[in-house]
């Protein structure tokens, strides 16, 4: 029964992928390609490309893609539900305890020490995306002379609009895609 297989495969993906989408990719590969043989490795790499190119969490994207390819719309629902059941249960419990105890003084001291680290984590994600945007590579392989001027300009203008005019973030994200594509098309680079 393929739906049942998919359901259990994605419960495990949801349960064991700690620390963001990229942690989920090897798990999905393990379940879908290696254990159940539901997809070939080639199909799987297509899936990851598409999951990265579309908005939304990578594991939900992959769950939907795998579900659709293997079992149509019921597959989509089964895979996605399987993928979020562990999150739902665990986070609900954590949320319950967080809101029960967060106003306790001692808890505030401990959480206070954690917040600067969260700021650093967000900054680190931002830095990775910026480097990837400006150099199309990771920090370790950056060659300064390869900087992409169009992206640098878009970044600077976007940051200026956000800081100075408090422009809507979603407008900025979508707008940068549109403006950048137009610039590259005019330059004849597409």
């Amino acid at each position: 029964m393929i739906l049942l297989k998919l359901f259990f495969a994605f419960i495990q993906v949801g349960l064991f992928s700690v620390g963001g989408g990229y942690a989920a990719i090897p798990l999905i590969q393990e379940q879908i390609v290696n254990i159940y043989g539901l997809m070939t490795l080639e199909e799987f790499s297509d899936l990851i490309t598409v999951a990265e190119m579309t908005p939304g969490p990578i594991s939900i994207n992959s769950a939907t893609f795998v579900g659709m390819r293997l079992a149509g719309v019921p597959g989509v629902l089964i895979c996605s539900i399987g993928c979020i059941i562990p999150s739902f249960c665990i986070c609900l419990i954590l949320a319950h305890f967080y809101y029960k105890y967060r106003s306790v003084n001692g808890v505030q001291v401990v959480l206070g020490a954690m917040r600067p680290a969260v700021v650093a984590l967000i900054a680190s994600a931002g830095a990775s995306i910026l480097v990837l945007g400006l150099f199309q590579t990771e920090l370790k392989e950056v060659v300064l002379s390869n900087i992409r001027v169009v992206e640098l300009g878009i970044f600077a203008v976007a940051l200026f609009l956000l800081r100075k005019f408090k422009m809507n973030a979603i407008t900025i994200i979508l707008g940068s895609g549109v403006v950048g594509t137009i610039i590259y098309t005019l330059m004849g680079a597409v």
Partner: protein
Amino acid sequence: MKKDYSKLGKLFKTMFVLSACTFGGGFVIVSLMKKKFVDELKWFEEDEMLDVTAITQSSPGPLPVNASVIIGYRMAGIVGSLTAILGTILPPMIIISVISLFYEQFRTNPYISVALQVMRAGVAAVIFDVVINLAGNVLKTRRFLYIAMMIIAFVATYILDVSAMIVILSCLGIGLIDLVLAGKKKGRVV
């Protein structure tokens, strides 16, 4: 914690829009949620949002889904959680279901790949905008411990590739030590 069902519609709509426009991983949506829920709607406090981020990052499963569970729970209990999750997973489910039918054309379309590349610059600008505010508030605490932890955590995650979960757990440990030390110093306002 008061449950407020009147905001469910707005919660669903907000999650749906954020999820549909989140390119590039969990911390992008965290930045967008901070802008929307803390700065714009004022439904959440900044500290609370950072705590939620830490919890979601340390739980298994996709980060945006985890964050939806907690944010929804805070607003309207389990009904709120389910509403927020639905808003978060529907856009990727719809988009991927459609794309999976003609993903070959999608994957090889030059305009789409250019748009996705330049969009990173806009996404990076949004994250930087949020980080400038958050880091500014950490600096304003004027606590050497917090400022040092923020810098060390950034170097650890971005340069040394230490996993986010280890960083968060270490900071919780430091927070506990801080709590014990604070308890010994009489008269200090916690």
